[in-house]
C-alpha cells in the first residue's frame, strides 16, 4: 500500500475515550490496517486502557483518565501510543489471524427476504444463497449488539438497500445483507437488514470463555446447510 497510514484526527469521545479516525468513509484496505493496529495496541496491555475497539474507519480507545500509570494528557498519551504502534504494523501482511466458518441454512423458512432480494437483483433464490456462501468476508466492526459483526466482502450482485420498514423482531442467528455488508443477528432483536438465512450457532454466549463467535478482523466463510442439518446442529 503506497498511501501513508496515519490518523486523520483524534477526537475526544468524552473525557474517558478517544476516537482515532483514519477515514470518514469505509475503505476495506484502511479497515484491515485498523484491525492490525488494534491488535498491536491491545497487545501492549496498558493498565490504564480499558477497551481497544476497532470501528469501520478508526479505532476507539477507552481509558481511565485518572489511572496513576497514565502520565500527562490522556489524548496526547493516546496519540503517542498510536504513533508508536503504527510502526509495528506491516501493510503487506495478511491481517486476518483466523477463519470462522458459519453454517447457514438458506431455506425459505429461515429466509423471509430471500425472494425479494432475488427479485430485485434478477436472480433465483438459489443463486442468492450460492453467491452469499461463496463470499470471502472480513469482520470490519462489532457493534449494535454484543457479537453483532459487520462483515465486508459481499458480492456486488447482492447489493440491496436496507428494508424500508425494519422488522420488530429478527430471529437470533439470522443472516442478513444490506448494501455491501452482511451480518448475523446475535439475539432476537429488531432490525432492518434483509434476512436470507439462519445459522444454528450461538453468536454470543456469555457462559463461553470466548463469548463472541466473531472477533474484529476475523475472516468469515459461510457454508450452506440443509434444514435437517440445522435442526441437528441446534440440538
Amino acid at each position, binding site marked *: 500500500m503506497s498511501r501513508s497510514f496515519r490518523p486523520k484526527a483524534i477526537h475526544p469521545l468524552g473525557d474517558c475515550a478517544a476516537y482515532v479516525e483514519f477515514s470518514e468513509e469505509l475503505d476495506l484496505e484502511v479497515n484491515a490496517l485498523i484491525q492490525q493496529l488494534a491488535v498491536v495496541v491491545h497487545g501492549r496491555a496498558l493498565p490504564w486502557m480499558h477497551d481497544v475497539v476497532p470501528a469501520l474507519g478508526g479505532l476507539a480507545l477507552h481509558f481511565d483518565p485518572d489511572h496513576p500509570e497514565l502520565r500527562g494528557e490522556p489524548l496526547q498519551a493516546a496519540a503517542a501510543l498510536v504513533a508508536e504502534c503504527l510502526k509495528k504494523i506491516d501493510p503487506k501482511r495478511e491481517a486476518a489471524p483466523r477463519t470462522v466458518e458459519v453454517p447457514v441454512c438458506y431455506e425459505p423458512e429461515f429466509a423471509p427476504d430471500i425472494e425479494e432480494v432475488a427479485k430485485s437483483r434478477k436472480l433465483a433464490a438459489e443463486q442468492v444463497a450460492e453467491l452469499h456462501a461463496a463470499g470471502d468476508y472480513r469482520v470490519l*466492526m462489532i*457493534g449494535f449488539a454484543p457479537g453483532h459483526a459487520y462483515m465486508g466482502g459481499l458480492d456486488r450482485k447482492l447489493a440491496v438497500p436496507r428494508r424500508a420498514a425494519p422488522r420488530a423482531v429478527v430471529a437470533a442467528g439470522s443472516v442478513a445483507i444490506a448494501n455491501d455488508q452482511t451480518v448475523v443477528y446475535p439475539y432476537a432483536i429488531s432490525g432492518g437488514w434483509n434476512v436470507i438465512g439462519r445459522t444454528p450457532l450461538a453468536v454470543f454466549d456469555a457462559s463461553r470463555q470466548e463469548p463472541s463467535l466473531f*472477533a474484529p478482523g476475523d475472516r468469515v466463510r459461510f457454508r450452506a446447510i440443509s434444514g435437517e442439518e440445522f435442526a441437528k446442529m441446534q440440538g
Partner: protein
Amino acid sequence: MSIRVLRPGLLSTIQDRGRHGLQHVGLCPGGAMDPVALALANALVGNARDEAALEITVIGPELEFEEDSLVAVCGAEFKGSFPHNRPVLAAAGSRYNVGRAVRGARAYLAVAGGFAVEPVLGSRSTFIPGQFGGFQGRALRHGDVLPLRDPSTSRRFGSLKKTRDGSVRWSAPPLTLPDREPVLLHVLEGQHFGSFETAAQRAFFEAVWRISPDSNRMGFRLDGPALARAESDEVLSGPTCLGTVQVPANGVPIVLMADHQTTGGYPRIAEVASADVPRLAQLAPGGTVHFARCDLGMAAELREHMNERLAAALRGIAWNYGQ
C-alpha cells in the same frame, strides 16, 4: 443467608462497577448507573468499593431479611421505612418497604458481604438486553430469594452489632442528588457538532431538555427542540461511549447510559463529562437538564472534584466507624 423479594419494585437489578474489556465484541461495560452512590453504600456496610448492590429505580421493592444483615441505601431518597445514607442492622425476619423515590431516581442497597451471585464475564452486573449477569440475568420478581454471602467478612457488621439499636447517628453525604432542576450537565462538543445547523447548535445549549418516558438504562431520550443537521449525508457508523449524545434523523437527542450500544450510526453532537453522568442518572422521566460547554481540562477538574468529595465521604465513614 438470603433476602426474600415481597414486591420487586419498578426495576431492581444487581449491579456492580461493570465489565470492561469486551467493547470490541460489542458488549458495553454496563454496571451501576450511579457508581458514586454505589461506592458510598458499599463503604457503609464495609464492602469493597466494587461489590455488587441492588440498584432500585423510582419505585422501590419490599424485602424481607431472613438473617441479621447489615444494610445501607445510598443515592435517591425513597419514601418508606428505610433510613438513608447510614448503616442499618436489619434483624432476621424484618421487612423493609422502600416506597417511591422523592428525590433522585436510583438508589443502591448494599448488604455486608455482598450478594452471592456468580460473576459473568468478570462482573456481577445484570445486563438485561443479553439476559445474563446479576440475579438470573433479569430484574427482580415477586418471590425471588436473593442469596447473600457471609457478612462476618465485614468488620463493620461486627461493630454495628455492638450498638444498642443497630444503627448510628451519623450519615454519609449524598453526592449525586441534584439540588434543583434543570440539572446542569457539562458537555464536550461531539465529533459531528459542526455538521448541525447553527440554530440547532445554539438550541442545544439554550434549551431545557426533558427526559422522555421512553428512557431506560440504555439511553435517555430528550424532549425539546428538534435538532436539524446542515449536512444530510449519513455518518459512518462509529464508536460511542457512556454519555455520548447522538441525534437520529428525527432530531431527538439520546444520551447513552450504562447499557448503551458500543457503536452507532447517528451523528454525535456532544459528550457528557464523565463526572456529570451520575447526576444525570439520578433523573427520572420528566426530569430536566440543560447543557453547558466544557473542554477536556474542565472535564478533568470536574472529575477531580467528584473524586475528592467521594474520598472525603469515604474517610468520614471510616472515621465514624473508628477504623
